[in-house]
């Protein structure tokens, strides 16, 4: 019983991490239809920014905040300086972000070396709390809380503000949105900044879970983020959340109860199954 509780709660923690990693990608993909490979770059940069600041100031919280703000600003810059020229042509956008992913990962490795860097987190995060006999690491609770907050905040942003509408419409037909008197560019920049900030948040928290940041943490997380977004359904923020929970729990159970190390294959299988049975994803729109 305590094992099951342990697996379930840590599985939810894993799900929370996957959701955070996927959320920025899902937001940008869902709203702007950009398959943003640079998301991987921000996952890495966020981790390194958090590490730099934490190392200098000794405060992980400050590191986290600085990472989020810094990456949001950087993402906004990237959108205005680079991506903006390419609206209307999706493939070049994908390509641009691929280039950024490759370049930024290499840059980080060049500057900080290829060894992982240790990220010091507050002691309480690494301690455990017993629930029904299962020792749960406290950082998993942190993950779950942050993920829930992000989910609620983003849902409100999409439902309560016009930005969601503007961007969905802008993706479909950008000139027509401007012809309704709306400055699409501002909305796009904002969303991109949010995406960058979310990536940084996920990158820094990944660093906190792993206790280290590494140059290619972004690239390896990115694949998981893609898988979560696709399983959840293109353009569905809620879908990403559901998929993250599914993947996190399934992986955790498979790793314990299943054949040794079935955890990674099961994710791939799940993806293949979803694509074949329900190509638009669990909660995706039929086709947009």
């Amino acid at each position: 019983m305590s094992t099951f509780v342990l697996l379930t709660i840590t599985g939810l923690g894993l799900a929370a991490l996957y959701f955070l990693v996927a959320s920025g990608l899902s937001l940008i993909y869902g709203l702007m239809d950009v398959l943003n490979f640079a998301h991987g770059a921000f996952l890495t940069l966020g981790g390194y920014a958090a590490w730099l600041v934490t190392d200098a100031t000794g405060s992980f919280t400050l590191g986290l905040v600085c990472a989020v703000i810094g990456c949001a600003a950087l993402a906004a810059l990237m959108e205005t300086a680079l991506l903006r020229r390419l609206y209307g042509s999706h493939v070049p956008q994908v390509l641009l972000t691929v280039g950024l992913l490759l370049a930024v990962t290499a840059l980080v490795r060049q500057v900080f070396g290829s060894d992982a860097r240790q990220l010091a987190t507050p002691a309480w995060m690494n301690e455990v709390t017993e629930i029904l006999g299962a020792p749960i690491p406290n950082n998993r609770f942190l993950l779950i809380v942050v993920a829930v907050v992000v989910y609620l905040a983003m849902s409100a942003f999409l439902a309560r503000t016009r930005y969601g509408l503007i961007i969905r419409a802008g993706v479909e037909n950008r000139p027509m949105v401007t012809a309704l008197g709306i400055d699409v560019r501002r909305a796009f920049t904002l969303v991109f900044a949010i995406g960058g900030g979310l990536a940084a948040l996920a990158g820094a928290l990944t660093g906190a879970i792993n206790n280290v940041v590494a140059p290619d943490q972004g690239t390896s997380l990115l694949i998981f983020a893609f898988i979560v977004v696709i399983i959840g359904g293109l353009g569905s923020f809620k879908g990403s959340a559901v998929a993250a929970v599914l993947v996190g729990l399934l992986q955790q159970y498979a790793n314990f109860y299943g054949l040794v190390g079935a955890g990674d294959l099961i994710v791939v299988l799940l993806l293949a199954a979803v694509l074949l049975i329900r190509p638009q994803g669990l909660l995706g729109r039929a086709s947009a």
Partner: protein
Amino acid sequence: MNLSTLQARVLPAAEPRASWATPALLVLAAALPYLNVQIPVLFDGAFSSPGVLHLMSLMCVMAAVAITYDLLFGFTGLLSFGHGLYVAAGMYTTAVALAGQGFAAAIGWTLAVGLVLPLALGAICLRVSGIAFAMATLAFAQAGAIFVVRDPFRVTGGELGLALAYERLPEWLVGVVNAPYRYWMALGLLALTAAAVRWALASRPGRVWRAIRDNEGRVAVLGLRPYAFKLMAFTLSSFLATLAGMVYALVAGGAHAEVTDSTFTLGLLVMVVLGGSGRPYGALIGGLVYTYLSHRLGELSTVIGEPLLVLGTLFVVLVLFLPGGLASLTRKKGKA
């Protein structure tokens, strides 16, 4: 939104044209091993030296792979993130069959795998389109990568890779002194691939592929079954990639797990766009240049340790300022 229609706006319709330049270049390329000429800085030795020939062999192989990728991506509008799987299939089938059964069997098995694997996987992946297709191919490639690296049946050598059982190879393929033969083999592969793809594009299905890239639904209403055509393009492209994988293994002396990594396929994407996707010669040029740079940058510069930093940046600049790729530099912009 539909990826393929969007792409159509950036990609011009290419009209492959034959000219005298192609055979002339081919003859020149074939004569390189006899040229005891060195281009300083650019190459670290004379053309006839094994090191340069080896590099050029790799460039030819990768250019061939890039061409097969462009057939999918640039001309049919199918964005695949799993193309490396077929190159890997070619490499590993060759290495495994060579050790077990010898050279002739290795070729036979590779051809068979190159036909059956893409037919089977393509039949599944092509049930979906757009990003979902990209993800399905990614999923299978990931499964392939996991298979290779984890190596449950102890055949692939895991991340250590599988060196060729060179004692079972014909003598002319073994040893540094025989670099010219491997170069001609790679050049032959490139010529064959380019010719096959060019022929296919100029064929009747070739036209349909481009129409599918533009507007798939409309193709169906005209009475053509897009699925069949896409599967055809997918199989042809993957088959040629498998073939290239075989030559790659012969040139590099073994199969290695890097090819199954998703960054390998991303590299292909970069090559194709670098050269100019959906353009004659685009992928070829991109494949040559990218492979050259990724091998030589580290050697050329002591300041920049990470070649991908330069390549990634170059790629970004190119996408922004030369969306047609390098190939668009050589040709005046014309209509159609």
